[in-house]
């Protein structure tokens, strides 16, 4: 199983995928009709005229919320494997998970107290 030849199917798969993409792109470029114009080259936005620049700075609060969401989301995900093994792991597992959740609660209290969740400040 460890010889390079066992990777052959993967390489063929890769070549087929790449080949398909390149062929269709090149073919549509060659075969398809081309019409150019100011109106034609505009970005299509559901039929509505584009306004302004897409690269406007966002408020940092959105990032804070997103990052904190990821943190606590991961915490919740850890409960699933623990719930499955709840009985086998016994009190030792319970202690470990309590410490884990405890750290997260400390983190939550810190985030709250530092004002990261205050939206209109």
């Amino acid at each position, binding site marked *: 199983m460890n010889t390079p030849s066992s990777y052959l199917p993967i390489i063929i798969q890769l070549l087929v995928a790449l080949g398909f993409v390149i062929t269709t792109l090149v073919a549509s470029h060659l075969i398809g009709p081309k019409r150019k114009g100011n109106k034609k080259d505009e970005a299509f936005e559901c039929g509505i005229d584009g306004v302004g620049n897409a690269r406007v700075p966002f408020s940092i609060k959105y990032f804070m919320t997103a990052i904190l969401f990821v943190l606590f989301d991961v915490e919740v995900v850890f409960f699933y494997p623990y719930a499955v093994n709840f009985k086998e792991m016994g009190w030792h597992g319970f202690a470990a998970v309590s410490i884990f959740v405890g750290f997260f609660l400390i983190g939550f209290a*810190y985030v709250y107290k530092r004002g990261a969740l205050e939206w209109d400040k």
Partner: protein
Amino acid sequence: MSVIIVILLTAILVLFLHIFEGRQWVNPLAILGLSLSFIILCLENNSLWGDYSSMIYMTQFAKVFTGTAIIFTILVFFINQSRLKLEEDTNNGDKLGLVLFSLCGAILLFTFTNITMLFLGIEILSIPLYVIASSSKHDLHSNEAGLKYFLMGSFATSIILFGMALIFGATNSLDIMTISEYFSQAEISKMAALGAFFVGIGFFFKVAAIPFHFWTPDVYEGTPSIWATYFATVVKIASFGAFFRLYILLGNVDNSPLYKVLVLIIILTVVVGTLTALVQENAKRMIAYSSIVNSGFLLMFFLNPSSDILSYFGLFILGYGLATIGIFSAIVYLESIGNSNGFEGFDGLGRSQPLFSLGVAICLLSLAGIPLTVGFLGKFYLLMSLSFDQWWMILLVIASSIISIVYYFRIFNGMYFSNKKASAIVAPEVVSPYLNFVVGFCALSLIIIGLFPDFYLNIFQ
């Protein structure tokens, strides 16, 4: 294990004390917690921490290195205390907390017995430091340093991780004893050799060996000086501690793929590092290049690994760390009175602050390797460890040490032989007692351990 727990709890307490109206007690609490963890480290017996799947083990080597890292961090916090008297810092608790978290990572790097722990240690050490590097929010240089450090650091970590994956593929184990047994065979597979090579390259990034050093001067220059002290000492020790342990396990064979790379990198590091340090016009950049040259010297210990080498390696890194902390505290003082980081900032310091500059001078002499200091002994033992057919390495060390006196002497020259009047250049402000303490501690321990090295060397037995 209790050392790591004490440091972690201190970090959490520091974070909370900061938000609950106890800002002025944050720094003393951090120093107190670290002192407590140092005492616990000294009292605790070496033991396998079996409850954690035997993934960390406190050897005597790890114990000395952990102690050294804790003491260096305490000194850095003392330097930090001198700053707090002058300016209000609303984020001090966060910074101290981050440094303490990264210290936990450093301890994992000394104690790991499983390469998963090695990876976790590197990450716990590095991630807080990316934030610390850019902690001076409105300074563009600091932002640049943070971004550069983050990109370079994560790049190096991913290379190490790739190497680990290859090693795991070849040996089917993450335990370093099993891996080390595999590597001591006469014939090792190409996959394992490539893995060891990649891990080595990643660590060359971390310890800033040339040609993987480009981030070092920029990061040291941009990072606020107090935290640059931490980067230049504790982080250096941590990466070298882990690299040394790993090299002894993976590279201890004559046909090791790492050996030839290592020799090449040592020559490049010492030669290019020494010559580049000569042309620097900024004290912080000069120290950065001096730390690169010292990395080259430390890598020379890897050439002939034996059990004695461990203690000599420890002595060298102790001398380097103490001297660097001393010089950085002078830079912090000069910055606090508004002097530039250039060498002219040191002009007249010898007359306006005679005792303080005496301490800094001793640190400089130790880095240059003048007798009676730890720096000399470190280089002496380094030369002792090299064998006769490595005579060109010995030449390299001696030549580099002689040239290094030139660039260390530029600070020395500014302090003592500057023609400008002391009062005209350096405002006759008093040096904070905390800075005086740090420089005094560094200078005295450099001399005392330089005179009686046996005391330190025996701890390793």
